[in-house]
């Protein structure tokens, strides 16, 4: 469905008039920028260098960093959830969990332990939000991971609710090693390519770097304001 646009012509004509010319009608090409300093950041770093940068920045943003293999993921994730005090746990609905062998943990192991688990299910509507709000741990997956700022990037969809990363008390991001790039530059390029290839840009792309925080009272850092109090990244060696 197409939305409405109101009051545009007079508004934009006025801008053109102030700029001393007619309205621009031909498609405008972006100029070749004279400077591109962003491309030089960590340009020569290897993947392992980037992992090191990521890990060291996690410490600065109060985020626990764990590395594991695909085979070790079930144990590592179970431990991370236990460290945060157990359930209820809410996750996206995502094939990658199955691919990484987590189904048994989610659907057999946790129920057996009495740990409440909810997988996002768009057919049950707002019930998902209620579950996320009551959850102790939210688990999502990084599409692109920025080493420089220790940032995970999430793409929303009907199966990948935005609030899974915000409403629960604590947050765990699964980070495939193959998703690591130097910085936001590469993520922005990837998003732009998606658009240019005719794919829809996700309605919500979250760049998340650690837990929620604020310094609004006397500039003292408080961790856990509106979003999670704690965050853990689990790096999965998938290369």
């Amino acid at each position, binding site marked *: 469905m197409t939305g409405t646009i109101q009051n545009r012509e007079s508004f934009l004509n006025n801008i053109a008039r102030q700029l001393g010319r007619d309205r621009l009608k031909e498609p405008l090409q972006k100029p070749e920028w004279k400077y591109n300093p962003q491309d030089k950041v960590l340009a020569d770093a290897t993947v392992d260098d980037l992992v090191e940068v990521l890990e060291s920045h996690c410490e600065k943003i109060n985020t626990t960093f764990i590395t594991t293999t695909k085979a070790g993921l079930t144990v590592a994730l179970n431990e991370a959830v236990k460290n945060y005090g157990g359930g209820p746990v809410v996750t996206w609905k995502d094939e990658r969990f199955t691919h990484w062998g987590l189904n048994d943990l989610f659907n057999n192991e946790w129920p057996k332990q009495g740990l409440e688990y909810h997988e996002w299910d768009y057919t049950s509507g707002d019930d998902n939000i209620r579950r996320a709000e009551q959850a102790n741990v939210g688990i999502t997956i990084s599409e692109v991971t920025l080493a420089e*700022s220790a940032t995970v990037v999430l793409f929303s969809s009907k199966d990948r*609710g935005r609030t899974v990363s915000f409403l629960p008390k604590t947050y765990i991001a699964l980070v495939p090693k193959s998703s690591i790039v130097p910085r936001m530059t590469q993520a922005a390029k990837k998003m732009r390519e998606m658009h240019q290839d005719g794919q829809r840009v996700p309605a919500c792309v979250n760049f998340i770097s650690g837990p929620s925080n604020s310094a609004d009272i006397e*500039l003292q850092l408080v961790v856990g304001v509106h979003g999670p109090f704690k965050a853990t990244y689990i790096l999965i060696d998938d290369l």
Partner: protein
Amino acid sequence: MPMKIGNENFSERVGKGINNSFMRGAVAGAQDNIGARRLHAVEELGNWEEWRSHGEEIRQHVLENLDYYLEQLSENIANRGGNVYFASTPEEANDYIRGVIKKKRAKKVVKSKSMVTEEINLNSSLEDIGCEVIETDLGEYILQIDDHDPPSHIVAPALHKNKEQVRDVFTEKLGYKKSSDPTELAWHAREMLRQDYLTADVGITGCNFAVAETGSFALVTNEGNADLVTSLPKTQITVMGMERIVPSFEELEVLVSMLTRSAVGQKLPSYVTVLTGPREAQDVDGPEEFHLVIVDNGRSKILGTEFQSVLQCIRCAACVNACPVYRHVGGHSYGSIYSGPIGAVLSPLLGGYDDYKELPYASTLCGACTEVCPVKIPLHELLHKHRQVIVEKEGRAPVSEKLLMKAFGLGAASPTLYKWGSKLAPSAMNPFTTDDKISKGPGPLKAWTDVRDFPAPNKERFRDWYKNREKGESKS
């Protein structure tokens, strides 16, 4: 609140600021703290000047082609099912937003921090139609429950309050019973606000940057409040100043990085959120309906003038944190929601010289603001231009300058007054003095002290020294 805050005149406001010793200590501490973090964050890049040049070229290109990019933005938003309203005035913006609120029969609005909505006085416009409006940024929330205390800093709005004052406000207004520990205070606000997010009908946000090519826009926070504001209510309204736009994700990335490094010294904040249109058909969270309101409110009058570069601003407040005048007088002295050097340039342009002709004089023209600006706005030159316009074209100098010139005339004409003046000099220079050398000189001294120290004004004036020497008492 509107852009203009309070009804006191400039010198009354400054008098209050200078006599508020907690505020002055807090501002000085904040400037030192954030200033050092900013410096570290930009220096570790190793080529900050190149970043600044890139920031500048992006912002200049956008302003030169603003009509094109706004048209492209609006087309792309409409294609994704969003609605776009172009508002020339605050009244048009508020009327449109009230229309949406009424149509939705909305009773409760949650808001994330937005300077442009302050500028158009949106909150009171919505309260007038019986709507409850709740600010969710912790700093803004504190100010709002304290009977709408005005913000004193663009990035840290409640900077002028100490934690005991915050506790007292919480105790009085929220029945809070715990300590003045910032963590306990913040967690109490979290509890209060969680329910509001879940029950609000409409979420209202500002816009850090819109992206023309995809019809997207970005919100930058550390608290995550903007994310709850944009994922829980069924209707979302985003208000943007018309110049806050970039061509594509590639330029968005650069400016967000520069914004957060310059504002608080962070590589990235906890949350950068890029939203495109309303939720998709089967999505569970995110708004079903999305409106973008693009506000002019005097900005177009700045285009094509010698002040155009002020529209390059990305609202990082690095200039505020570097300004020696802001340090001493605090944010409320500016009488505008936009304080510091950017406020002194922008407020007279948006609000007129009648209310703001004093602000361009609230500067030593030392140029510290221009040096830290990530997008290279020549702030101190624009302040100087304002003074030229005020004196030459408007034919009026503000009271402070007239007094100054009068005082200079008097002072130079009377030896007694001259002596009094030079006696004051050492204490006025104290903040810049270490071991009798001035290492960070203000104003005209700056160029000199950049390369060497300048001898501090002698604690013993020459006249006193000479007199003492005559008496044979001086040890100098």
